[in-house]
């Protein structure tokens, strides 16, 4: 399971997850901003802020948020990564924990926070980064490469699998046979949409229409449980199985969005599943396409430099 991986794969994951996180922070900036004004009596610390019983100064919250966005950009570009990598992943953890410390835990940021910790505390800026220009080429094979680049990626895969398995187990554990029979799911879809309507929030008219068809829910509930508990197949070495599972899990989130207007942006963006693929190939193709467009050949001085800074691997078709 713990295979070696090229530095570029981990680097591609750093860029994808970093860029996603910056986009997420900017897209949800209003929510992070408004959090500073919630009533103090609602404060209920969770996770690393378990001790929190009163809110922070609103200015502190807003400065931390802005710093987090700036750190996210540096993280994505791989600037000063030995410091920025761990600091960004920890500041994101604290800022996002603070957002959830007001009475209810939302489950949209758990996986990205865990992935950022794996990336931030690893050598994910050894390629395709600003820092890589000033470093020796990264090892490309052997136990060194496995430890440096393979282990963090596998840690991300393991964390992803565990989150889905736990969600599947929770459904069977708390919902029991009612859940598998589809009643629980049908009631959940109806209740969730109704609550949103009564709380003046956007809901899913499609979900409201679908609850009329009772027969749809038993197979949907079974399929959901199979996808969640079946996440263990993503640990296999078969790329086909990993792809099938990733697409199925993504489809599940699309259905959740369609039926309940609940968005899990990290899996919906597919970035959550990037660690299951050889994502560096996409980046390499992009670089090649750019080279072709500018008419440069792989023998050029800049390509040799590029190969050196991106882990010592020669360009594809080079």
């Amino acid at each position, binding site marked *: *399971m*713990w295979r070696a991986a090229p530095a570029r794969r981990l680097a591609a994951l750093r860029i994808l997850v970093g860029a996603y996180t910056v986009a997420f922070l900017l897209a949800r900036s209003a*929510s992070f901003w*408004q*959090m500073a*004004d*919630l*009533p103090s*009596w609602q404060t209920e610390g*969770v*996770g690393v802020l378990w001790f929190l019983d009163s809110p922070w100064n609103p200015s502190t919250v807003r400065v931390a948020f802005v710093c987090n966005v700036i750190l996210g950009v540096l993280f994505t570009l791989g600037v000063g990564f030995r410091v920025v990598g761990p600091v960004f992943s920890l500041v994101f*953890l604290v800022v996002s*924990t603070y957002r*959830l410390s*007001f*009475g*209810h835990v*939302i*489950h949209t*940021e*758990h996986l990205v926070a*865990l992935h950022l910790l794996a990336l931030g505390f690893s050598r994910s800026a050894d390629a395709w980064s600003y820092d890589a220009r000033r470093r020796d080429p990264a090892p490309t094979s*052997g*136990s*060194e490469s*496995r*430890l440096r680049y393979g*282990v963090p990626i*596998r*840690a991300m895969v*393991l*964390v992803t699998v*565990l*989150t889905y398995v*736990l*969600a599947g*187990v*929770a*459904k069977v*554990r*708390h*919902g029991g046979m*009612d859940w598998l029979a589809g009643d*629980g*799911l049908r*009631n*959940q879809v*109806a*209740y969730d*949409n*109704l*609550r*949103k*309507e*009564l*709380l*003046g*929030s956007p809901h899913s008219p499609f979900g409201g*229409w679908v*609850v009329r068809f009772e027969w749809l829910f038993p197979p949907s509930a079974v399929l959901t449980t199979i996808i969640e508990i079946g996440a263990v197949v993503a640990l296999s070495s078969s790329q086909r199985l990993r792809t099938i599972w990733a697409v199925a899990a993504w489809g599940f989130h699309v259905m959740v969005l369609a039926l309940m207007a609940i968005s899990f942006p990290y899996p919906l963006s597919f970035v959550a599943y990037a660690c299951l693929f050889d994502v560096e190939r996409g980046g390499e193709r992009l670089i090649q396409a750019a080279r072709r467009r500018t008419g440069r050949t792989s023998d050029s001085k800049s390509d040799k430099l590029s190969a050196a800074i991106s882990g010592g691997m020669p360009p594809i078709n080079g």
Partner: protein
Amino acid sequence: MRPSPTSELNKRRSVRAIGLAIVVVIGVLPVALDRDSYPLSTYPMFSSRRTAIEPVHTAVARGEDGSIRRLTPTQISGNDEVIIAAQLVFDSITRDGGTVLCGDIARRMSTSSDMIDTIEIVTEKYDAIDWYEGRRSPVSRVVHTSCSVPEVTR
């Protein structure tokens, strides 16, 4: 220089230890503690034993003509997350019957151009399946508190 077999073995052991630690911390610990938290969680979303009739705690505005207007999560809590708004209403009902929250919302709504007379903190019960089949009468409706929207700033 090739790494020695001992150092290879040590590396392999550390890698296995990392894997085990991840499984214990992310997979076993949250279930053993049975607590939903962040970033460790049991991921209980959608897993509760839901029935068709469940209470919804919310705040509504009543117009001068007696009509009811639904408030948005931002108007209720100052934040656009619906779950946080719902939790805020529930917590405020448990805390003081919703009195403080009612006053907060009334102050927030005093700048609204809508003709709103009072704010009500309510618990409403509907049959959610019936609702989507067109039968929309409440099973029950409890008004915990109501308060007037200040006129002076309107």
